[in-house]
């Protein structure tokens, strides 16, 4: 059956912690049970998990429960009353292409699509090149982290003036295309500019995580592949991607879970003007207006319900690919 090793408060067999283990030796049944916990052990366990449990009860269950209740409430004569009016409001807003909600929904999908299908693969590729130690890789890794290192307020303040009238970018644009747009004050350009900004500024943090993950790949596998004629970029297809699939699929799942929260720095650049509303910004606006708390909660509730099946389907698909242990 195997050898059992017992320590004071963990009962280990083959590296696994068990509550009870049954042995048969010469047909004699021997039952080894996990020793009872001492008072100090119990106090330590309570000490270790009490605060997080209280925190999750208060700041997750109660807050999110309140959010769900708020979705079904409305302020009438200073009192919260139960109603479905918020859902009717959202439904009417989604039917109206000119409403901020519909604009927010459309822009959110654009931001999500761009970040998932353009930004994520680009970050992966750049991280691979940094991991492969192309010339000046460490320097690039440091520089690419600058947008992640400094506050978005710092970055957007600098970029805003680059793009403002009189700045270098409108002048370059004028030389190339013969027009001088006001990038963040023109409905034709504002959303596109924000998407490009988001792409330009967002590589940094992702690269660190990917490079850290790629570093775990055994070099012997790569060398074996090279001996078999694997190319530099073939390494991504045949070695890196298959081995890091669990990590990549987790990152992709986190991306999918944020589908309705996808947004750019709307508050920092345009405050929702010039066709740049997103659902996240609309919820923020409802929150600070104080009178829109229930509507903001309602659309959040709808977004959460719609995200659940997406996550579950994606997780099922991701788990169907067997990870490679290494």
């Amino acid at each position, binding site marked *: 059956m195997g050898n059992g090793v017992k320590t004071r408060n963990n009962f280990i067999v083959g590296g696994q912690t068990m509550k009870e283990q049954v042995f048969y030796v010469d047909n004699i049944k021997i039952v080894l049970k996990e020793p009872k916990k001492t008072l100090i052990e119990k106090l330590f366990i309570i000490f270790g998990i009490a605060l997080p449990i209280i925190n999750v009860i208060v700041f997750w269950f109660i*807050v999110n429960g309140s959010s769900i209740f708020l979705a079904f409430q409305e302020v009438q004569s200073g009192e919260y009353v139960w109603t479905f009016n918020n859902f009717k409001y959202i439904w009417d807003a989604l039917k109206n292409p000119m409403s901020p909600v519909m604009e927010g929904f459309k822009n959110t999908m654009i931001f999500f699509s761009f970040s998932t299908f353009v930004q994520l693969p680009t970050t992966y590729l750049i991280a691979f090149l940094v991991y492969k130690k192309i010339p000046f890789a460490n320097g690039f890794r440091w520089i690419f982290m600058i947008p992640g290192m400094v506050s978005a307020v710092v970055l957007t303040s600098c970029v805003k*003036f680059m793009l403002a009238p009189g700045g270098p970018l409108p002048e370059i644009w004028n030389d190339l295309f013969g027009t001088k747009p006001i990038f963040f004050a023109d409905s034709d350009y504002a959303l596109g500019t924000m998407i490009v900004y988001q792409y330009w500024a967002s590589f940094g943090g992702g690269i660190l995580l990917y490079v850290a993950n790629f570093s775990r790949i055994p070099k012997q596998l790569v060398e074996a592949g090279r001996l078999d004629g694997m190319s530099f970029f073939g390494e991504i297809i045949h070695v890196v991607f298959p081995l890091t699939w669990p990590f990549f699929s987790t990152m992709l799942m986190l991306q999918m879970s944020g589908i309705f929260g996808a947004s750019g720095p709307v508050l920092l650049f345009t405050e929702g003007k010039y066709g740049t509303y997103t659902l996240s910004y609309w919820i923020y606006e409802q929150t600070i207006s104080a009178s829109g708390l229930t509507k903001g909660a309602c659309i959040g509730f709808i977004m959460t319900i719609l995200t659940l099946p997406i996550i579950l389907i994606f997780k099922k698909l991701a788990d169907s690919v067997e990870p490679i242990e290494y």
Partner: protein
Amino acid sequence: MKKNFEKHTIPEKICIVFTVVLFTVYSITLIYPFVWGILASFKSGAIEYFDDPFAFPKQFHFENYKTAIMLLEFNDIGFVDMVMNSLWFAGGSAVLSVLVTALCAYTFARYNFPFKNALYTFSVFIMMIPIYGSLPAQYKFYTQWGLRNSPLILVTALGAFGTSQFLIMTSYYRNLAKDYKDAALIDGASDFGVFFKVMFPQSRGIVITYIVTQFMASWNDYYSPMIFLDQMPTLASGLFTYQTVVERTGDYPLYFAGIFISAIPVVILYSCMHNVMVKNLSFGGLKG
């Protein structure tokens, strides 16, 4: 580096050179706005700034940085007060959240208790499933319980579940050799002693990494302080709202001096810690 490059084939070398050129151009586009902003911060004032925003300063006015510290204020909250708010908000939330997470992760890794697996699964669940639209409820709840505009807001940092840090740290503690713990127990240490004197010091690399990343994130966060600490602004949120003042006065050099002062701590922190961060920031993935 040269040896690394030489072992590639010709087409690969061409790809690599092209990539290096592309990365260099991208790096220049990243650095240029900051260089421009720093140069603007040395100009004499609104007049010189608007005369030609993209010219070199006629003279480098280093006193702009001192003036920013002394004069920048918004809603009667001065620069120094904003720095203090940033320090307790970023430092407090980083230290508290990481310490609580480390303790909880160790407990999960090394002890059995009722509903342990259910709690762990729940933690993964809430990490994966976002709850949208909780901001209004949060706002209402924090206001009702006096957490807004108060250091008490730091209690929200006393959590572990639903974070990737918790999952990574649990895995980390699980992989630490149990011999350290057994030896400490044999020497008469209690469970508290084992954690605080043996296991926690073993994990200082990953703990420090997470404290630094959390500190940087909280220091740079303008959104949460703007909503929940509107009367106690941090540097990030205060400088963001100060933009409305700048648009009236035109004193952009002073404003840029202020925002670059706010960037100094995190740039120094990252420069010192980025190798340690890369070593400690990784996780395999989640299945099941």
